[in-house]
C-alpha cells in the first residue's frame, strides 16, 4: 500500500540503511578514508562544522557509540551536547516528543538518537527540523555501525564487492545484523546468517541473504561476524536456546572454527567465552579494535555527509527551513582535499 503513505523517510536523515543507495555508501566510506589521514596529524581538529550543533540524545547505555559520536562532532569543530535519559526530564516522565520539541527549540543541526524502542528516531524526525542520525533503535537499525563495519572490511580486505560475510548468532534481536545485511547487499557483498532456528527471524531471506543453522557453513566466508549473545535471552519465558553452554558448543567461534585467511569481527561488547573464544578475540584475525577506530572516522563522515556533502539531497525533505539557505561553513569543500 505504498500509495497510502511514504514508506521511506526522506534522506535528510540517516534513520536506516534503507535510506541509502550504493553511491551514498561509497561516498561516505571515501570521506571516512580521507578523514582517517587527519587522525594521524598532530592537531586532529578540523574546522569543517564550526558553528554547527550536534546533540546526542541517548536513552540507552552506550560506551563506544556515544563516545565516538561526541568525539566525531568535536573533531569537526561542532558544538556538542550529550543528554542521557537518566538525570534529565525523562526521569520526570517527559515524553520523547516533548524532549524532542525542547531540544528543537535550541535549533540543533543534528540530533543523534539512541532509544530502546523501534520508531523513536522517526518520531524525533517528525517533531524537529534537525537532521536525525539513528544511533540504534531497539532491534531495528544501527546504520552507522554497519557503515563502520564496511569501512573496516574494506580497509582490511581491500574490497567489498563479492565478499562473503557470515553473520553468526542472535540475528533475531540484533539491530547490528539487520543494518549490516542491508549494507552488504548495497555494496555487492553476500551475507550468510548462521544461528539456531529460534534466533533467526522468519522471513529474513527477503533481505537477500542466505540462512543456515550449520556452523560449518561459515568456512567459505571471508569475514566471520560474531553477534553478541545476550544473557537475558535465556530468561524465564524467553528461552530462545536451552543454555549458554549448548549455544557456545554449537555456535561459539573458537580457534578450530576460524580458517586461516578469515577475519573475525564483533560489534562489542564481547562476551568472551560465550559467542567468541578469547583466543580468537585476541588473535591477529580479529578486527575488533579496528572497528572501534573506524567508528570515529565513519561517524565524522556521516555528520559531514549530512551537513555538507550531499547537495542533491538538499530541498528533498518535507520540512525545509531557513537552515538549508545558510551559508555553508567556509571549509573543506570536498573530502579528497583533506587527504
Amino acid at each position, binding site marked *: 500500500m505504498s500509495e497510502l503513505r511514504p514508506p521511506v523517510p526522506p534522506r535528510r536523515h540517516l534513520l536506516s540503511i534503507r535510506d541509502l543507495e550504493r553511491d551514498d555508501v561509497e561516498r561516505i566510506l571515501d570521506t571516512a578514508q580521507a578523514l582517517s589521514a587527519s587522525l594521524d596529524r598532530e592537531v586532529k581538529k578540523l574546522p569543517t562544522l564550526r558553528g554547527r550543533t550536534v546533540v546526542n540524545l541517548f536513552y540507552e547505555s552506550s560506551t563506544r557509540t556515544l563516545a565516538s559520536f561526541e568525539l566525531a562532532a568535536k573533531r569537526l569543530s561542532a558544538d556538542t551536547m550529550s543528554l542521557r535519559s537518566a538525570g534529565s526530564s525523562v526521569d520526570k516522565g517527559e515524553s520523547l*516528543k516533548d524532549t524532542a520539541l525542547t531540544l528543537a527549540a535550541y535549533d540543533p543541526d543534528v540530533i543523534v538518537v539512541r532509544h530502546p524502542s*523501534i520508531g523513536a528516531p522517526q518520531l524525533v524526525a517528525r517533531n524537529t527540523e534537525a537532521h536525525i542520525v539513528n544511533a540504534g533503535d531497539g532491534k531495528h537499525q544501527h546504520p552507522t555501525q554497519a557503515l563502520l563495519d564496511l569501512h573496516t572490511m574494506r580497509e582490511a580486505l581491500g574490497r567489498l564487492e563479492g565478499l562473503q560475510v557470515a553473520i553468526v548468532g542472535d540475528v533475531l534481536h540484533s539491530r547490528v545484523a539487520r543494518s549490516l545485511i542491508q549494507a552488504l547487499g548495497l555494496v555487492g557483498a553476500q551475507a550468510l546468517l548462521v544461528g539456531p532456528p529460534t534466533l533467526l527471524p522468519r522471513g529474513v531471506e527477503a533481505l537477500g541473504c542466505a540462512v543456515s543453522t550449520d556452523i560449518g557453513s561459515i568456512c567459505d566466508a571471508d569475514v566471520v561476524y560474531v553477534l553478541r549473545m545476550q544473557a537475558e535471552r535465556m530468561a524465564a519465558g524467553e528461552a530462545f536456546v536451552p543454555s549458554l553452554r549448548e549455544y557456545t558448543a554449537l555456535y561459539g567461534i573458537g580457534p578450530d572454527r576460524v580458517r586461516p585467511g578469515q577475519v573475525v569481527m564483533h560489534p562489542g561488547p564481547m562476551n568472551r567465552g560465550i559467542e567468541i573464544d578469547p583466543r580468537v578475540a585476541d588473535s591477529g584475525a580479529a578486527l575488533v579494535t579496528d572497528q572501534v577506530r573506524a567508528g570515529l572516522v565513519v561517524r565524522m563522515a556521516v555528520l559531514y555527509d549530512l551537513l555538507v556533502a550531499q547537495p542533491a539531497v538538499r530541498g528533498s525533505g518535507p520540512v525545509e527551513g531557513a537552515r538549508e539557505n545558510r551559508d555553508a561553513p567556509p571549509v573543506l569543500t570536498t573530502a579528497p582535499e583533506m587527504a
Partner: protein
Amino acid sequence: MTLFCANGRSDSLVVEGRVLSPAQDIDETLRITVTDGVISTIEPASANELVVAPAFIDPHVHLRTPGREDEETPRSGTEAAAAGGYCAILAMPNTDPVVDSAAVLGALVERAREEAAVPIGFMAAISKGLRGEELTEMVELAATGAAAFTDDGRPVESAGLMRRALQYSGLSKLPLALHCEEPTLSRGGHAHEGAVSAELGLGAYPSTAESVMVERDLALAGAEDRQIHLMHLSARESVAALDLALSRGFSVSAEVTPHHLVLTDEAVRSLDPNVKMNPPLRSEDDRSALRDALRRGAISCIATDHAPHARQEKDVPFEEAPFGVIGLETAFAALYTHLVVPGELSLETLLERMSAGPARVFGLDEPRIAVGARANLAVLDLDAKWTVTEEGFRSLSANSWLLGETLRGRVVKTVADGRLVYQA
C-alpha cells in the same frame, strides 16, 4: 431489548435515489417517505446521484466508557457512528471498570438512554475483570440488557474456562464473541511475522497465534453445540478453520475489519503508530483470503474494531504505541474506495456485510426498506470525494490509518431508529 439510545423525536423526511437493499433484493430508483420514524410510502422516482441503503450495524466498537471518557463516550461514539452511516453499534466491555456486573452494565444503559444518538448494544464480559478466572453472572447480565459476551482485548486463555463459558452462556441464549489470540505465541509481538517484521526487527506476532486459538474455540464450540462469533479475523489459517467448521454445520460466524481488508504489513514500514493493530496487519496472501471469505459469505460481517486512543498515547515510538485504530466514520468510504471501485467487491456485498450480516449474527432486527418498517437508512453519495483529516472526526480521538487520504463515497444522511441523526 438489547439496544439503547436517547429517547426523542421520531422524524419525518423524504429521501430518494437508487435504493439498494441486497438482503431484500431491491435495486430500484425510489422515493421513500418517512413519517414519524416509520417508512410510510415507497414510490417510483427519477434518478439522482444518491444511493439509499439499509443503514449499517457495527458489531465491534470500543466506546471507552467508563474510564477513558477523554477517548470516547457513548455520545461522541454514536455521533461518529451516525456520520459513518450506522443505525446500531455493539460496544465492547473492556472498560475500566469492566462491564462484568449488572451494576456497571445498568449504568451504561442509563447513560446510553441519555446521550446515545444511535442505538447501542452492550456486550458484557465472559470473565470477571477479563481475568479469565471466573465467569460473570451471565443470566443477570442478559436480563440487564447485554447483547452478547466477550473478553475482547484479550483471549480466554484457559480452555477449561472457555468450555464452561460455552456451556453456561446457553442459559442466556446469547452468543460468545471471541478474540482469538494464543498469548504465548503473540507475546512481545508488534507486527505480523514475516519479511517486514524480520527487516524492521519488530517482535513477531505469527498467524498461528490467532489460528490455533480459532481452532481450539471451534473445537470446543462444536463439542458443546453452541454459537460463537469470531472477531476481527486476520489470517488465512483462521479462514481455513472457519470454512471447515462451517462445512461441518457448526453455528459460527466471523467478522473482518476494513484495515485488514485494505492494508498489509507493508504499511508497517512507515512505523506510523496508526497502522499498529491487534491482530496485526498481515500479508498479501492473508488479505486475499479475507477478501475471498467476505465475498463468499463465510465472513458475514464487517466490523470496524473502532478503538480510540488519546493523541498522546499514539504519539510515541511505534513499539511503545497501543494497538488499535478508529474506523466508524471511514469504514464505508475506505471499503468503497479500496475494494468496490477497483472491482474487488460488489457494492451489494459490501452493503449486505455492513448491515444485514451483523444483524443476523447478533439477533438484531435487520434494517429493511419496507412500508411500515422503522426507518434505518444510509444515504450515500458514491461520487463524492473527501479527505480524511484530524479535524473532521466526531470521535474524540483521531488515530485513523487514513489520515490525509482522499476517499471516494460519502455518507450524506443517516436515519437511525426513525431519527435523522446525521446530515452532511
